């Protein structure tokens, strides 16, 4: 592979990693105009979906995330539409279906982010960015644990009494997500400055 082409590929990878960074911004930041979230999570997943083919060129297992990304995008669209129409909960069989789907989506989401950050870390390792790899792995681990703990907190009524603890965890989660986003843009920058 010639050097110019390699440089071109790296630039493209950097561009797509930037997409993933934007994906995180869309997923975790909500800016609402009335009931409309103008930074919808589904747009974030679309950014990530667009980056997966490039990631899979470096890490084959990233290709396995495509179907999950489509599923998560679909769910995010549904949530976004429901919020626009002010539907916060549904009763009857529809409510049951949404409950079941939300449980499954929660599990899929945990795995999806874990695997994607693992793949990104592995790619960083392949490109000799060991420090970036370690940082991504650490952030991935913290992200997975935090999301699990927060899911437990939000589902157990008696834990919600510890409001400050829940708020503290939510804040830590926000900071960790911010760090992931910064790390991803840092990764992009690393790739663009790699000679």
């Amino acid at each position, binding site marked *: 592979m010639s050097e110019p082409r390699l440089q071109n590929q790296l630039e493209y990878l950097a561009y797509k990693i930037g997409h993933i960074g934007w994906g995180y911004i869309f997923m975790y930041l909500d800016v609402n105009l009335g009931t409309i979230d103008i930074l919808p999570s589904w747009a974030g997943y679309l950014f990530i979906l667009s980056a997966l083919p490039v990631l899979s060129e470096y890490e084959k297992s990233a290709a396995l995330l495509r179907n999950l990304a489509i599923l998560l995008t679909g769910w995010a669209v549904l949530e976004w539409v429901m919020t626009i129409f002010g539907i916060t909960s549904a009763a009857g069989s529809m409510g049951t279906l949404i409950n079941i789907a939300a449980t499954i989506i929660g599990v899929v989401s945990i*795995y999806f982010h874990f695997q994607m950050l693992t793949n990104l870390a592995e790619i960083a390792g392949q490109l000799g960015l060991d420090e970036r790899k370690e940082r991504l*792995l650490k952030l991935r681990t913290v992200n997975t644990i935090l999301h699990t703990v927060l899911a437990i907190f939000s589902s157990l009524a008696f834990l919600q009494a510890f409001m400050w603890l829940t708020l503290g965890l939510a804040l830590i989660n926000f900071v960790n997500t911010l760090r992931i986003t910064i790390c991803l843009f840092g990764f992009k920058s690393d790739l663009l400055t790699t000679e």
Partner: protein
Amino acid sequence: MSNIWEFLLMTLTGSLAALIIIIIKALLVDKLSPRWQYGIWGLLALRLLLPVAVSGRYILAPFPLLTETLKFTVEKNLDSAYSAAFEPIGSPWFLPLINGHPVSITDWLFAVYVAGIIIFIAGSLISYIRLRLMLRRGSVPAADIQQTISQVCEKHALKACPAVELDGLTSAFVCGIFRPVLVLPAGNVTDEKVILHELLHLKHKDALQSVFWTLFRALHWCNPFMHYIFNQIGNDMEALCDQRVLENLEGEERRDYGQILLSMVNEKYPRAAGTTSISNGGKNIAHRIECITRFKKYPRGMALVSVCIAVMLIQPMFIGTTAAGLQRADLSPSTNDDINLYSNMSALRLNRCTTMAGAIDTYVKGLVTENGLYIAAASPLSSQEELMNQMLASKADGWIYTHLENGLNGEPAQTYSDFATPFSNGYYSVYNLKRVSEGSSLHTGELAIYMEYYRHTEEEIAQGMPVYYEDPETGGWLPAVALYHITLDTEGKHWVVADCSEPEIIIAETISSVSNLAVYDALEPVAVYKGTGLHGNITAPLFTEFFVKQPESGQQNSDFGFWGTAGFNTTPYTNAQFEKVDMSYLVTYDFTGSEEDLEKIYYVTLESMICDSEEDIPDGSGSLDTSGPVSSGPAINQSGGGSSSSGWGYIAESFEEGEIWNGTISDRNVNKFLTYKTEFSDYFRTDTMPEIPLPAALASKCYMPGMETDFIISREVSR
């Protein structure tokens, strides 16, 4: 479980849990290791072992409510021995238990179900015994085969077991749990990888696990979906064993292992409890070969996400989501159908009151809103049928089914501004709540519901009386209080209002002060304090008043009742807590001196204070009102009163010249209250009533000019 409904609920809940797991597994099939793929079924096993619907919470779908409604609809017309229409579903034990002879169709269905379990288990047992008997006809393998087994054991650090060769077998298997035997097909050379597979089964006690799953299969024998699930579990167990084999093999050996599996595609599946076999049917083997093609050694980091996913499923699988919800009265006639009532009655059986305060709150709100469902939610199960029939009967009078007459004939106090205390604490309270006897769960109390206006009866109105009772002086409508004697008890883990009397209506004499409501006159005190002084005696009956915690102001709902739109909260809180206990007493000083002394008294003050403990009893010194008559002009029985900052309640009376004091002075004080926000909060952290200790004593000081101040310590003399 003891009836068909509990089985139905258990198998529906298990099926849903299995469905969720299988969907997640399908989504992550090529992503997580076979260890996770099999291990996640452990959650299902736990789910099947744990009782369902005991708490009324449900797993994502409201099966408890659906099953309860179905049970009620069917059982109300039956006289079943195993289940009752008004007994909620909920068994703490997952194994079936038959009590008595079947009577109804549903009893017989349960009997058939239990018979099916016995037949299923007996069938499995017979298969196993026949297999063991067949093994007796087997022969000891040749020395070279024995050597192969030893080599496999040595190479992979595995423990061997006795081996036999049997004619007519197509593949090897391990049979037995306590005395396992490796069974090999006679006349064929068994590949060492097949032996490795079976010895790995042996190492991980997979035969024992297969017995475990067979027992669950027996319990759900009539649920085809669960059969499918248990087949999947068996397949995942084999796939995990394949993974373990592949982890022990290298390069070409792995490919050879796949070839061996391929050669078994057309073999039959000899499934039997207590055995494990490498060959588990063509379709399953095809799936396992797919797994083998994906084989890889999963990195350690995957353990983290595997565990996190399992943890994420704990809440929906075991803790459940919101309970079915006690449905609030919907006063729209569109809901006036029997099935809706059955569903509501079922919902309330699943959402019974978990605290004493919750039972009181739910019952009171039932009375106030005339909602029979709320009353039923706080009533014993034995009274449910009668309550339901009363509700159904109200339809004939044009009411919707939730209607029950409350007999109040008045409008509950809606706003705090209408009256001073006790209305500032809400529109109801319970006086003198107490345990009937030591160790008993029975409690009694006097429920007081305050009303802004009290109506004349229809007969009185027909005779020309105004709609409301009126103040003779101002013409304003009079407040009233309805007093009910209530008995509270536990029913299992729940609290109920076991009995409630007809209301005693006490109407205020004037509108000017709520204290005109002679509530205390109608009450028996919880204790009486008495003491003797230099010139007189103290008698002080003591009353307690309990208040249930309500949402903060502003959270009142907008129920529409006969009073108009409510300005107070009418939503029942089945798990409410007590918020405050007031302690009030009516202290009376009776002068016992001579008539001559009495004639000299033109001014008298009485101060009193509750003493929590002996240490709190004052020594009699300190301030005392000796300032003389409260009014300089002539006055009869003119009095002043209040309470000092030091906690002393105070009242004074003066008499004009020529007037003679009758020798008695009384004061009512509510200067002792305990709330959950204070150092007494520990008393309120309970599902029952706060056991507030009664005061050690009541200290009183009575001052009469020209006499030594009478300082009296009164002690409790009765309860």
